[in-house]
Structure formats: C-alpha cells, structure tokens
C-alpha cells in the first residue's frame, strides 16, 4: 500500500508541476490559437530570473516568484507586439517556425550568459523535508506545488468566468470582429492575455527548478511535455489541461516506477491514444 500511495502522490504532484508550466500555453495556444512554441523560452526566462535574484541578490525564494511572473509577462508583450501579432492569421507552419526560432535563440543566449552548467537553487528550509502520514512520506515542496497549482487554477477559472476582463478575453477570442464592434480593444486584450499566459510560464518555470533542475536546454526539453498536455487536455480548456497534467504526471511517474525499461514511452503512447480517440483533446470543443 505504501509505495502505491507514494507513487500516486508523486505523480499527482508532478502533474501539478506540469500543469503550472503548461497552463499558460493553454491560454496562448489554446485560447488565442497561436502555436506558441516560445512558451518554453518564457518559462526558462522566469526560472533564470528566480535563480539570479536568489543567488546574486540574496532575495528569498517566495519573493522572486512574483517577479518571475512579471518579467516573463512584460518581455513576452514586447515580442507579442512586434513579432507575433502579424502572424496571428498566418499558417501553423509560420507560427511554428518563428517561435521555434526564438526558442533556439533563447537557448543560445542563455548558454552565452549563464553557461551550460545546471543552476543551483536553495529553497528555504520550511519547504524542505517530509511529512509522514502512516507509512508514506510526502515531500513538503510537492505539497506546496499542489497548493500553488490548485490556487492558480481556481484563480484562473474564476477570473475568466466571472470577471469583466475574463468576459472580454472570451469575447475577443471567440469572435474578434464582434468584440471590436462592441467597443472592446481587442489588440490590448490580446496583449494582456499573452502577458498572462507567458507570466504563468515564468512562474511555472521558477517553481520547476527544484524538481527538474535548470540549464540552457530547459526551453526545448519541457516544450514537448507542455505541448502534450495542452493538446491532450483540449485547446483552450483550463480544466482540460488540469486533468491532462494529472493523467500525464501519474502515468509518467508510475511508468518510471513500475516499468523503468519503458522510459518516456508511456506518455507519448498516452498522448497518441488520447488524440486518436478525441482529436480535439479530452475537453476540446474545436
């Protein structure tokens, strides 16, 4: 019983981490329909903001998290205004090429500035250690991840569903021309939405360092997992990404525990099976 619960919890917590780094993509790719492979680069940016602030300026870990969100969000708006906006109506291929080009440049720039070694991080003591319940150990940091992920998803779903700004986003995404006709500044809404998505990427990246480490290739390695979660969850569905992240997190952790020789085989298999069964993803409408 012990290991089973532990594997389940670890998988769930890993899923929550995956949710945190990919929920922003669910906003930019899912809602705005822009194939944004640069999402991984914004996540990496947030992670490096946290590492730099902690290691060079001595900031406490929790204080760096809002800044990771803000920096990634602000920088992404710069790109959105200049490079991405002209491509909103372009083909999938053009969007893929431009954004993967940016990922390549980000990877090279980071290895130029920070080198290729993995970055150390020292999380505060109160986030370390384990809580023991019965025979199972639960890592405090993983519990922290689960709490943050639940908080983010509740805030995001409530914000999109019940606030004026959320309604404007949904209107702008659903029907641009109609939204413009109603006096909504669609360009401004899209810029804010993009900043929100990339900011979440930065936050997720910062939270991920402790679990998965951080080096220059972060943007490329986790890009694929992010894409898997968003496409399995269904484009534009926050709750879909949440469920998909749990499914992928648990199948990956359980797969590595029970069938180590399969490697990452299982999550690709899960993705292909889900997409064959429901091409628009679990909760996708389009």
């Amino acid at each position: 019983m012990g290991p089973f619960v532990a594997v389940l919890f670890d998988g769930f917590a890993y899923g929550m981490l995956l949710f945190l780094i990919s929920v922003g993509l669910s906003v930019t790719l899912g809602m705005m329909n822009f194939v944004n492979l640069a999402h991984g680069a914004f996540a990496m940016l947030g992670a490096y903001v946290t590492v730099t602030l902690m290691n060079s300026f001595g900031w406490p870990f929790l204080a760096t998290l809002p800044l990771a969100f803000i920096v990634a969000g602000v920088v992404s708006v710069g790109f959105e205004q200049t490079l991405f906006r002209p491509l909103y109506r372009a083909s999938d291929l053009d969007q893929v090429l431009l954004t993967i080009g940016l990922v390549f440049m980000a990877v090279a720039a980071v290895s130029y500035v920070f080198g290729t070694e993995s970055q150390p991080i020292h999380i505060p003591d109160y986030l370390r250690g384990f809580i023991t319940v019965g025979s199972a150990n639960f890592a405090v940091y993983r519990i922290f991840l689960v709490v943050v992920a639940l908080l983010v998803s509740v805030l995001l779903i409530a914000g999109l569903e019940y606030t004026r700004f959320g309604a404007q986003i949904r209107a702008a995404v659903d029907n641009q021309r109609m939204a413009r006709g109603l006096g909504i500044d669609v360009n401004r809404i899209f810029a804010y939405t993009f900043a929100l998505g990339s900011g979440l990427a930065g936050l997720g990246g910062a939270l991920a360092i402790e679990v998965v480490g951080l080096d220059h290739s972060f943007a490329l390695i986790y890009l694929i997992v992010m894409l898997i979660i968003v496409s399995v969850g269904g484009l534009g569905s926050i709750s879909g990404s949440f469920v998909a992240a749990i499914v992928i997190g648990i199948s990956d952790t359980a797969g590595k525990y029970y069938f180590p020789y399969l490697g990452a085989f299982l999550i690709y298999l899960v993705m292909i099976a889900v997409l064959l069964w429901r091409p628009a993803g679990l909760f996708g409408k389009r």
Partner: protein
Amino acid sequence: MPAPSSLVPPQQFLAKQVRWHPLEIVFWIATLLPFYFFPSYLSLASQIAIAALFALSLDLILGYAGIVSLGHAAFFGVGAYAAGLFSKFVWGEPFSGLIVAAVLAGVVGYATSFIIAKFRHLTLIMLTLGIGLLLLEGANSASWLTGGADGLQGIDIWPLFNTFDFDLWGYTAYTYSLIALFVIFVATRRLIHSPFGLSLRGIRENSVRMPAIGAPSEAHIRKVYTISAVMAGIAGALIAQTTSTVSLESLSFERSADVLVMVVLGGAGRLYGGIVGSIIFLVARDQFSGINPQYWLFWIGLLLVLVVMFLPNGILGGLARIKLFQRGKA
C-alpha cells in the same frame, strides 16, 4: 509556381512544367564540381546530398500536400537502423540494404499514414511529433537490438559492386549518394508534375473541396506520405552505409527540426528548395563548426525568424519574386 496567364489545356500546362530548364541542367552538372575542385570536402558533399534527399522527402509532404511534420526523422531513423541491422545480420551488400531500408520505412510510413490522413493543424503536428518520439524511445529501450545510446555496433558494409570501397575521402560515398539523389529527384519531379502532383497542391490549398472534384484527399495523402517515408528511409540508409554508424541521433527531434529548417530556408513547395536549403545549412554549419555549437543555434534561430518575417517562400521564393519584379519593370 507562376499560374498560367491564359487558360491552357491541362496536358499542355503539365507538359510545359515537365520540360527541363537550362539552369537545372547547369545545377546538376555543378554537383560534379566537388570531385575536381574540393576533393577534401567530398564527405561533406556526401552528407549534403543525403540531407538534400531527406529534405526533398519532407518537401513532398510539407510543400506539396501541406502536412506539417515535426517527426519526419522517424522514417530517416527506421531506414538507417534497417540498413545497419541488415548489414550486421544478413549481408553487407549496399544495394539490397538500401531496398530493405526503403521497404521497411515505407511499411512504417504506410501504417502511420492512416493516422496522418485523418487529422489537420495542431493535432497533426502533435501526432507526427509523438510518433517520432515514440520510435526514438522504442529504439532507446530496445538496446539489445539497436545498441541504445551507444549506437549500433557491428555494421559491415561491403564495397560497392565488390570493387569501390567506402573510403575515408568519400569518393564512393559522394558518387553513391549523388546518384541516389539524382534518380529519386527525377522520379519526384515527374511525380509532382503529374495529375497526382497537381491534386496534392489542391489538397494543400483546400482539402475539403478536393473530393468534390473527384480527388479523394485521404487516399492521396496516404499515398504521398508513404512515398515520402520511402525516400526518407533511403536517405537514412545512405547515411548508415556511407558513414558505417547509426545512432539514436538519426531518430531525434533535432534531426526533424533541422530538415524542416532546410526546407523552409530554401523554399517549401519548390523542388530545389530543400536542396538549396541543405547546401546552405550544412556548408554554414561546417564553416561555423569552430565556434561553440550552442551559438550556432542562435544563428539558425535568427535565420528562421528572418525567413518567416521577410522571405515567406524561402530563398528560392525570394529570388523568384525579384525575377518577377524585374520582368514587370522591363
């Protein structure tokens, strides 16, 4: 591809397209130059010819049928491993190895084409990526057969026709790869200037409307995807045979991304796009190999951004536009 200015009968239109342009003949003669002028670069030339064949295979589905694939290395890798394993367990005769690799890649391509033909857009991109990664993980797990991360050991390629050894200088390698590229290029050229090739372009423009004029989209996509997989498999087999090495890299996402960059750089949907792109890409990489490979990635990224922003149809597309512009002024 310029549209016919006035309506001509389709047979005449296709016949006009099939005719060889003098520049094309010049280009193919120029491919022989490395033998005389750059004999020390023959192994690079052989790599370029193989990459060009791989790019041609991607261009067939990307540029003509409009299928965006992020996992085309799957077939390249299947071909490479098939050729390597064939030489290890059966015999090292190159031609038969090439055919076995082509058939095996074609079988995998045909099997996956049923999935590919059913989807479009992001789902399609994710499925090609997923199938590619699945094969990579499969090859990694099956290390008893593939050697896993260490690469395949025990490849033994016999000399071509039992006389021409695959030497260190790459004379045989380049000759072999260039002949393969040329033969397959001529076949592809014929294919895309056939009614089948025209209907592929129709599918790229509007896959829903094509069945209405009697061209079944799904069947056509299955067919072209299988052909493309065969070509990619041959390219993979060529690299396995000319270098006597097969590693997991041949199945990797990087290889899929590189070939996509080559096709887009040269110009997708233009026969010579992939070839020009692979020449520029590999020569540049060879010249910049002195600098840290991490920084090389930066220039590739910048190139991609610039091509998307300013040269939507790649280098060849840009040249064609300049030509049209000059003709308009005259």
